[in-house]
């Protein structure tokens, strides 16, 4: 049995033509490709960080040995 009140809540106000511009600007256009590229860049940055950290560690251990 359909509940009128519940069904009515599923209907929303339509955007008017004047509001279309704002809606376009506010639209989140981030896609999976963007996320993927960001992830790749984050990984690369992480790798760069990780690669630089062992060098510092080695230098520190040498200093301790001395």
């Amino acid at each position, binding site marked *: *049995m*359909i509940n*009128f009140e519940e*069904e*009515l809540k*599923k*209907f*929303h*106000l*339509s*955007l*008017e*033509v*004047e*509001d*279309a511009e704002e*809606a*376009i600007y506010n*639209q989140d*256009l*981030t*896609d*999976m*490709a*963007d996320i*993927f*590229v960001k992830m*790749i860049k984050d990984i690369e940055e992480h790798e760069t960080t990780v690669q630089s950290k062992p060098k510092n560690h080695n230098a520190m251990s040498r200093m301790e040995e001395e």
Partner: protein
Amino acid sequence: MICYNCGCRLSEHDFCTGCGADVSIYKKIMYISNRFYNDGLEKAGVRDLTGALTSLRQSLKFNKNNIEARNLLGLVYFEMGEVVAALSEWVISKNLRPKKNIADDYIDMIQSNQARLDSINQTIKKYNQALLYCNQGSSDLAVIQLKKVLSLNPKLIRAHQLLALLYINGEEWEKARKELNKCIQIDTNNTTTMRYLKEVENMLIPEEGVKAASKKKSQSKDAVTYQSGNETIIQPLNMKESKGVSTFVNMGIGIVIGIAIACFLILPARIQAAKSTINDELRVVSEQLDAKTATIDEMEQQVNNLTEETAKLQEDLDGYVGTDGALQATDKLLLASGAYLKNAADIVTVSEYLDQIDLESLGTSASESFTALYDTLTGLIGPELAKTYFDEGYNDYRQEKYASAIPKLAKAYQYDQTNGDALYYLANCYRRNGNVDKAKEAYAKVIELFPGTKKASESGTYLAEINNGN
């Protein structure tokens, strides 16, 4: 497909030939996006607009730069009556690819017609108003607004669904089913529509719910769908085209309706206009007639005045004629006087002039001098003239020429009124000539003027005879 890292065109390898970046996952993302686009295109082709919408949104979630998917999404929105959403997608598409983009044509198509754009905006406002009415519980007003919305934008699925929901709430199942069927004609696989329709059909005929599925299948076979370029054409199979006879029948009905409209709507207006014109003309003519009648009355009055004046002038003229007559009598008297002075013995000529003077007609208009001269002249020639007339008249009397004797004896008495014989014989002439009245008058005068004479006694005898004879 280009490399996300360097922008180089990618080959069939899983790495970029330009920068060496690993593009295997990136390529898979692009493939998935294209796959969803193809799915959306297929669904749009069979009017599964909701399914197409979902697939195309998925496609754009994987690749926002999939221009074809975005343009198709705009078209699907437009077909569902969501014009603002369609415009938004096309505008984004145009921004992403400014050149060689069909979205440009779509935007132009809508923006070039300002009236259509205004109509779209009105539709949206009315829909929002209807939704507000629904939330306020004013279902009747909402139904009216939604009907207006659908008259302007018959493809707006949300409006059809909301109207169907209102009908369902009002338990107007047939109307709800009609609206939902319209929804299905636009979007064949809308979940909300299906849910509402199932509810409606269950309420109408509980057993029909089972039959509905088979019926729907048979309905779907009633149409042939095929692709022509970017457009999907759905051609119904069982649609009958009007043939020749029905065309003529329809034309006949149309002509009859036209004539009826002309008779009942146009002709009365024309007749009214004609009557109005005629009344105006009649009024003008009546005014002219009144003016002319007034003129005629005035003229008649003038004619009467002139007639009276003419009568008065005629009287004056008669007076003048009288005067003229007097003058003529004076002329005759002068001529008679002149003739007498010239030759006193020529009494015949003098008497001719005197005879032409009518003393009776002159009456009192004759002057004293005229009367004196006339009397003098008559006195001078009268006895001789009277004698001449008496002799001639008596002679005629003796010869029984009474008609000839009468004027002569009358003249004889006129010029000599002491001549009683002349009067007596004149009376006898009248009597014997049959002029009784004149005879009686003359006899009476003899008796009166010459009493005691033989003439008077004989006149009395004759007068008695005449009176006894009457």
